[in-house]
């Protein structure tokens, strides 16, 4: 690349699709990127989004869910994204691009990522109203708008995209037909047997499939609108809506117009560094013809090209793009389909090993080479083995087990033994990470978990289909290095939290000593003791301070308050939903004033009183209980608050009464012991003032009911919550939350927030939905019962402590000098309140001024 002596150089990217965005991410990671100004010319009206999951828009997903460009990404890197102004011409001599609005943009390097256009067969009538393609959010909007009044939809194309579109139409409530020119569905990826299995499954869902039939013309009615589709076999299908989704064509017109060579079947010709014939112009993704002569229509190869192009411009060494593995694993219309390596067995001497069960709709075929190596395969209905089989096939190494063991269902396979993957097998095809690289990350770079490996190698951060295999490899490598990877809780229990929970649930309540004697060893520790205490509490085992349970609780649960840095405690009265009366405010104010406590408003719509000593706690609780408060959990692994906005009662925009619901939920779930803390919120409209989407469970009012979001998190690792279900009525909403919480409590690891749990949960959100809404595991009644038991058994833990002299005894500063203020806990004034004294500061103990106020005289003595 020849460059002049200007200090800032111009990089222009044409197209902001998935591959364009990946290019920007890869480019901004290059140190060389600093000397460049980046301009992006985009045709669509919005930044890059996930086209692969467009059909989620029919299923309750939102446009925001699909967004790929993180907030702040463009600003952070100074990228100038011009939406809705596509490039229309390239002047290679002058190194400028002209846009539709007539703006000329200079470039030193130009990257074409213009993607592709849907192929519409050249038959009459395809421009009639009612004809659509399926590529952009606008296409989906148009289809949805018409689907509302249409009865029947026909999709032309039975490939991957066509079936996606069919799924969308079906989700939109249309009677759906799929017309495919080839003799089977997904002709590129699967073989006849797999196509037949797929067809059966899809027809079970009510989609009608017509294979070996093409579209010969769109039939229109007197109003000019679509009324049907004429097929090449002479039949006519009535239809209100036709979607063409029969493949794509590279969008290479810009390149053609400026004289760059394009392939015979389209696609800008590039070399293995993604450079076109003009060294100042690169092309990536679906608009490019790779060095192996292919145009790749999948996103993973596009990402690899994007990364290659970024390295090329930065003049970095590294692998070029010479072609990609076309393996795919996806869920189409709810059917799992995977294809990898050479699924058709086109190599000489290749043989098939086949298992087919049309009753359960499972089809598995492996293609084995003459040397015994796995060459490829097709999996329909159950893609369990994909994580191991794909890397094996791509590596082309001989199998270490008999191939029939790999296709048979688990029960028949016998002792198959572990399948050994070679180190050069690519585990993550999105980011081209080999098993060897993953092992090296664990061995040499100290990555000791899947999360650390993801950070280190990017493996598993694309489609996520390799995560399970990644976990296996990380565990293997850690074990090889002698690192204990036992999933056990701690040295005292070899069980996970979920396993211990099951033990207690099945065998009935037990004491810690009994559990330790039967299932553990030693004396316990700070990990297993609170965990067992939490499990016992979750399963409704009486007051948390009763008997031996009292000795298990972490300090905060033991003292029912929040330990602060100098050894004093804070007390946070429960204010359900954040609603509080003026009288309530006054009571809290009086308590804080009389005990000399520091007060601060919390993020959970409560008031926190700081600086209480252990022996003050019962006095403070007494006053709270007498005024109708309970002290509230601001500590421990339990429900914290259900935050709310004022909702339709007061707010001009509110559509439901969010405050009343928040209060109801907070009272319902208070005291529920769980693997980690639980935070919740209810917003009265889509403006989301209560920030429900950052909570473990969040509810947003709609005109028709309530949308339930789960797995959100603020804190160190923020996570936007996922929509679990939409437009629920109050009763269904509460039942769904009940089950969600109880399922989480039952299956999560210790200290695993719902966000992490949901990411880890096999089958993810779909599985969770199936469990809590459709009772797929048959445990819903049990979950409901457990929650009912919690609600029925709830007691105000603080009031009960006050009522029991035995429990009160622990709230004493010194066992040999009760009532003596702790001389080591001292405070100084700041801004009219107290704060903990720092070492060496002149300070006083808290009780001194309190005694002057006479607070101790009016309350019971413990």
């Amino acid at each position, binding site marked *: 690349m020849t460059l002049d002596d200007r200090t800032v150089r111009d990089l222009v990217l044409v197209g902001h699709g998935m591959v364009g965005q990946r290019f920007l991410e890869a480019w901004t990671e290059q140190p060389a990127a600093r000397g460049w100004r980046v301009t992006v010319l985009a045709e669509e009206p919005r930044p890059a989004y996930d086209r692969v999951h467009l059909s989620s828009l029919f299923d309750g997903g939102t446009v925001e869910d699909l967004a790929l460009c993180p907030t702040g990404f463009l600003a952070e890197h100074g990228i100038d994204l011009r939406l809705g102004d596509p490039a229309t011409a390239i002047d290679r001599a002058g190194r400028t691009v002209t846009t539709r609005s007539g703006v000329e943009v200079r470039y030193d390097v130009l990257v074409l990522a213009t993607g592709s256009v849907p192929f519409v067969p050249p038959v009459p009538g395809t421009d009639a109203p009612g004809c659509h393609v399926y590529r952009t959010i606008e296409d989906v909007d148009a289809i949805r708008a018409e689907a509302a009044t249409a009865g029947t939809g026909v999709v032309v194309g039975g490939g991957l995209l066509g079936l996606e579109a069919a799924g969308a139409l079906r989700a939109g409530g249309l009677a759906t037909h799929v017309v495919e020119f080839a003799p089977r569905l997904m002709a590129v990826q699967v073989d006849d047997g797999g196509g037949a299995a797929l067809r059966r499954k899809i027809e079970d869902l009510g989609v009608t499939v017509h294979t070996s039939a093409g579209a010969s013309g769109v039939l229109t009615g007197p109003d000019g609108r679509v009324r049907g589709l004429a097929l090449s076999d002479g039949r006519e299908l009535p239809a209100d809506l036709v979607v063409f989704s029969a493949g794509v064509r590279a969008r290479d017109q810009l390149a053609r117009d400026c004289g760059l060579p394009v392939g015979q079947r389209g696609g800008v010709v590039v070399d293995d560094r993604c450079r076109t014939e003009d060294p100042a112009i690169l092309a990536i993704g679906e608009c490019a013809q790779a060095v192996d002569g292919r145009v790749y229509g999948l996103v993973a190869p596009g990402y690899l090209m994007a990364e290659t192009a970024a390295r090329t411009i930065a003049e970095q060494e590294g692998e070029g793009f010479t072609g990609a593995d076309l393996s795919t694993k996806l869920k189409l219309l709810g059917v799992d389909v995977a294809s990898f390596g050479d699924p058709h067995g086109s190599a000489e001497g290749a043989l098939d090993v086949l298992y087919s069960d049309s009753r359960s709709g499972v089809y598995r075929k492996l293609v084995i080479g003459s040397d015994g190596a796995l060459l490829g395969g097709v999996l329909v209905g159950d893609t369990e083995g994909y994580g191991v089989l794909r890397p094996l096939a791509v590596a082309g190494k001989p199998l270490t087990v008999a191939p029939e063991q790999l296709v048979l269902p688990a029960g028949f396979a016998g002792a198959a033994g572990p399948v050994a993957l070679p180190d050069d097998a690519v585990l993550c095809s999105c980011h081209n990470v080999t098993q060897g690289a993953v092992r090296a990350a664990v061995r040499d770079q100290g990555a000791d978990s899947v999360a650390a490996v993801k950070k280190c190698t990017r493996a598993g951060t694309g489609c996520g289909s390799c995560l399970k295999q990644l976990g296996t490899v990380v565990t293997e490598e850690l074990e090889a290095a002698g690192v204990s990877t036992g999933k056990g809780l701690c040295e005292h229990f070899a069980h996970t939290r979920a396993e211990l929970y099951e033990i207690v649930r099945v065998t009935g309540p037990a004491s810690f000593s009994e559990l330790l004697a039967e299932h553990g060893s030693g004396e316990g520790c*700070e990990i297993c003791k609170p965990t067992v205490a939490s499990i016992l509490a979750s399963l409704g085992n009486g007051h948390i301070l009763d008997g031996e349970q009292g000795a298990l609780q*972490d300090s905060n649960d033991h003292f029912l308050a929040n*330990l602060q*840095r100098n050894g004093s405690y804070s007390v946070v009265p429960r204010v359900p939903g954040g609603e509080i009366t003026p009288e309530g405010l006054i009571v809290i104010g009086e308590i804080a004033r009389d005990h000399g406590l520091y007060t601060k408003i919390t993020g959970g719509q409560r008031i926190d009183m700081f600086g209480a000593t252990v022996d003050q706690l019962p006095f403070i609780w007494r006053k709270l209980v007498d005024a109708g408060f309970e002290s509230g959990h601001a500590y421990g692994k339990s429900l914290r608050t259900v935050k709310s906005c004022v909702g339709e009662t007061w707010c001009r925009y509110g559509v439901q009464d969010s405050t009343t619901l928040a209060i109801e939920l907070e009272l319902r779930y208070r005291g529920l012991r769980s693997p980690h803390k639980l935070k919740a919120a209810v917003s009265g409209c889509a403006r989301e003032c209560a920030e429900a989407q950052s909570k473990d469970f969040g509810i947003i009012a709609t005109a028709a009911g309530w949308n339930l979001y789960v797995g959100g998190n603020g804190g160190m690792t923020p996570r936007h919550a996922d929509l679990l279900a939409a437009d629920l009525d109050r009763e269904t909403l509460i039942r769904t939350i009940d089950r969600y919480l109880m399922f989480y409590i039952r299956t999560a690891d210790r200290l695993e927030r719902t966000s992490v749990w949901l990411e880890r949960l096999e089958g993810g959100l779909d599985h969770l939905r199936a469990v809590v809404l459709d009772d797929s595991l048959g445990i819903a009644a049990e979950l409901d019962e457990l929650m009912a038991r919690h609600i029925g058994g709830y007691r105000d833990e603080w009031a009960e402590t006050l009522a029991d002299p035995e429990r009160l005894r622990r709230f004493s*500063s*010194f066992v040999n*000098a009760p009532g003596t203020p702790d001389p080591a806990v001292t405070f100084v004034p700041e801004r009219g309140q107290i704060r903990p004294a720092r070492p060496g500061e002149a300070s006083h103990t808290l009780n001194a001024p309190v005694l002057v106020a006479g607070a101790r005289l009016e309350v019971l003595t413990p």
Partner: protein
Amino acid sequence: MTVQIHDGTRWQTVCSLADLQPGRGVAVLLPDAGQVALFRDRAGELYAVDNLDPFSGAPVLSRGLIGSRGERPTLISPMYKQVYDLTDGRCLDEDTAPDGTPAVLRRWPVRAFDGEAAA
């Protein structure tokens, strides 16, 4: 039965044995304003160590959990969860406190004593 701690000069009676819940601790105030964290484990063994947590500087160790690591009986600070060996007071997680001093808790001789018999 009472519990006695030897403060360097003599045995001090600090509480009755029944005041100690197995698995938990209490704080004891010494005449010189020093503080001791006193524990009783499930087997009835008594331990007395500094109450001041060397890592936070707060007098909180009596509110920690006790347990075991391997064969050693342990105390876990409720503040930042450092683990101490109750038999020698040594911190098993870190060698030194933030101020550079060795992270070792002073231990006091402690015994269960039949006070009435002695009187």
